[in-house]
């Protein structure tokens, strides 16, 4: 960083904000994953190294390691350490299941990589039930060299789905905001990375705050709030081209964007009419419709997955609490009653529960609420936890927390049993948003 700082400073002095180099804006600071919490009841599984067929030297990417780490992160699987494995099977066909039975493995993933004449790779893998000998999956996935890691995540998705009956979330992505202070002031970036923190790319960089990234339902665009020119505005940016559009820059607040499930509307908070209210912006016609009308604060809208309702935070009752209203606006019904601070709702993909920030004994924590029973469970133990977002399969929640006084991200399973922490070696990480399932 020291080497590039001079140029960085000069660039920053010209415009307040510059767009990073779009798709090529690869950032070095990867998020490091640390798995926290027990693995009781986790299924033993072995992911044998994928050999490069007919090749000399190691495979270009350690696919087995990526798959094993993905599975371990869910807390449902306990992958066998590599040093405890018998010799690598030469091919899927050459697997000796008794070698793995001895090690008390339930399942085995074995595979190999073949380099094709056109430079592409063919990744062949099989998932075995070690005791019955049954192959639960056996397929070949073509992959470019650059996509090998992604292919490993796809295999992990397939394995997870075959063994749990639930879709995996390993090919999904994360959006998050980073902040670092240097002699030239603050540098804030909005980044997109793989769900395991790898492959981070900066999509916007600014000297002023960026916040509230929100994925479009097709996963191709992000809406976010930027303070560039010292004025809030809501932008929508296309990820692959870097092209972006300012969709709201009214006098006052322009914040809290949330896509409707059909991708046609953006709910957002504006204060142009006097105080913070929730509006729906039709992205086709650009028509703006006001949904709330109350002198208290109304903000942090979140759509129900069927698009019929909007949940939001309101200060109308004195304390911030979560309410819901029809998506066309209308009478709001209070949803949370326990505690003096409940805010920032986010609905589970099945629409049956929500996650929120709640204050318990002065500590701000993440809580999961069942919408039918109103039963609430705390998912985090920090003091300033915020910005919860569901994984696309609903099995986990990512949120922002602090570790040793620094902003990091944490992931927790919705049963609260297993978690991961994602941090950078420098600066703060915050405002996570988990992408919808890839299409």
């Amino acid at each position: 960083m020291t080497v590039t700082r001079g140029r960085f400073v000069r660039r920053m002095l010209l415009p307040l904000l510059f767009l990073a180099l779009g798709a090529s804006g690869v950032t070095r600071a990867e998020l490091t994953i640390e798995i926290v919490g027990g693995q009781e009841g986790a299924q033993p599984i072995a992911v044998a190294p994928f050999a490069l067929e007919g090749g000399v030297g190691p495979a270009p990417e350690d696919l087995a390691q990526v798959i094993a780490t993905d599975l371990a992160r869910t807390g449902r699987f306990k992958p066998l350490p590599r040093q405890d494995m018998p010799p690598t099977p030469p091919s899927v066909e050459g697997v000796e299941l008794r070698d793995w039975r001895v090690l008390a493995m339930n399942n085995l993933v074995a595979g190999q990589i073949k380099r094709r004449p056109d430079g592409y790779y063919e990744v062949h893998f099989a998932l075995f039930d070690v005791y019955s000998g049954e192959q639960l999956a056996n397929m070949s996935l073509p992959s470019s060299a650059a996509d090998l890691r992604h292919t490993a995540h796809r295999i992990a998705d397939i394995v997870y789905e075959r063994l749990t009956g639930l879709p995996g979330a390993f090919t999904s992505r994360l959006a998050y905001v980073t902040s670092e202070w240097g002699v030239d002031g603050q540098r804030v970036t909005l980044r997109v990375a793989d769900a395991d923190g790898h492959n981070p790319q900066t999509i916007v960089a600014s000297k002023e705050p960026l916040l509230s990234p929100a994925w479009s339902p097709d996963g191709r665009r992000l809406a976010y709030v930027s303070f560039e020119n010292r004025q809030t505005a809501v932008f929508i940016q296309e990820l692959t081209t870097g092209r972006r559009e300012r969709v709201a820059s009214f006098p006052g607040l322009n914040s809290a964007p949330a896509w409707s499930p059909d991708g046609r509307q953006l709910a957002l908070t504006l204060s142009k009419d006097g105080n913070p209210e929730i509006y729906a912006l039709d992205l086709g016609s650009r028509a703006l419709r006001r949904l709330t009308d109350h002198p208290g604060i109304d903000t942090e809208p979140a759509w129900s997955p069927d698009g019929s309702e909007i949940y939001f935070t309101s200060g109308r009752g004195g304390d911030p609490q979560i309410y819901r209203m029809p998506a066309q606006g209308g009478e709001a019904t209070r949803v949370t009653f326990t505690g003096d601070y409940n805010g920032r709702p986010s609905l589970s993909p099945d629409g049956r529960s929500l996650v929120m920030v709640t204050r318990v004994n002065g500590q701000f924590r993440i809580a999961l609420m069942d919408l039918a029973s109103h039963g609430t469970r705390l998912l985090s133990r920090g003091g300033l936890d915020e910005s919860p977002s569901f994984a696309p399969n609903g099995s986990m929640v990512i949120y922002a927390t602090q570790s040793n006084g620094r902003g990091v991200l944490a992931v927790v399973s919705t049963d609260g049993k297993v978690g991961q922490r994602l941090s950078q070696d420098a600066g703060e990480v915050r405002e996570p948003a988990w992408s919808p399932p890839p299409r």
Partner: protein
Amino acid sequence: MNAFPLSHAGLAQARDGYRPGWPDTLYGTLTSASALALAPALATGRGVALRTPSPQPSPARGEGVKGSAACAAGSLLLLAALLLALGGCASPVKQEAAKAPGSAATTIPLATRPGPPGLSDPNSPLSKRIIYFDYDSSTIKPEYVEILRAHARYVATTPKAKLMLEGHTDERGTREYNLALAEDRANAVRRFMRAEGAGEAQLGLLSFGEEKPTQPGQGETVWALNRRVELVY
């Protein structure tokens, strides 16, 4: 309830790598590099005052030092000297730099912005340009009424004056709610000043929520200093 064990031992400490607009020297610790930068400024005999933060909200002490705007607005000579020495500051300060006669030191005139007279007179209420709020409240406290009234009077009688009201919160609570709360605070100040005669077009409003704390770290003392509206001419 079985959340995984997260370590929060650092909660009571200042955050690592956290460098808001205040240089370390303002906290009373001079690094060798910044001491070198300060020495020539001291030699010029200009009024350099090392200020350390007081535990109580003290509106005057935040003057002109605000996050990334410090380069343009540094009203403390010390800050200006530091920033120049670090080479990280933009032209407004540098252009006004001059060689002090008979020494290799560079002095920097106090950066000023057009604002009301009395801005730098500690006895004038106009010198106080930050007011503080209670937790989750946008109510103007009685002790700040005189300050706001003085500014409103100045704005009302100075047609050219423009005043930006910048709202802030502490870090507790959700970011978007805090953005709205900070807006509410700035709005409360605007309503007050309008009632005291300031013109609508003269008052600008800006909410930063919890994004720009003046103080790092945690605890009620720090939070109290961050729950504020800054009056920026």
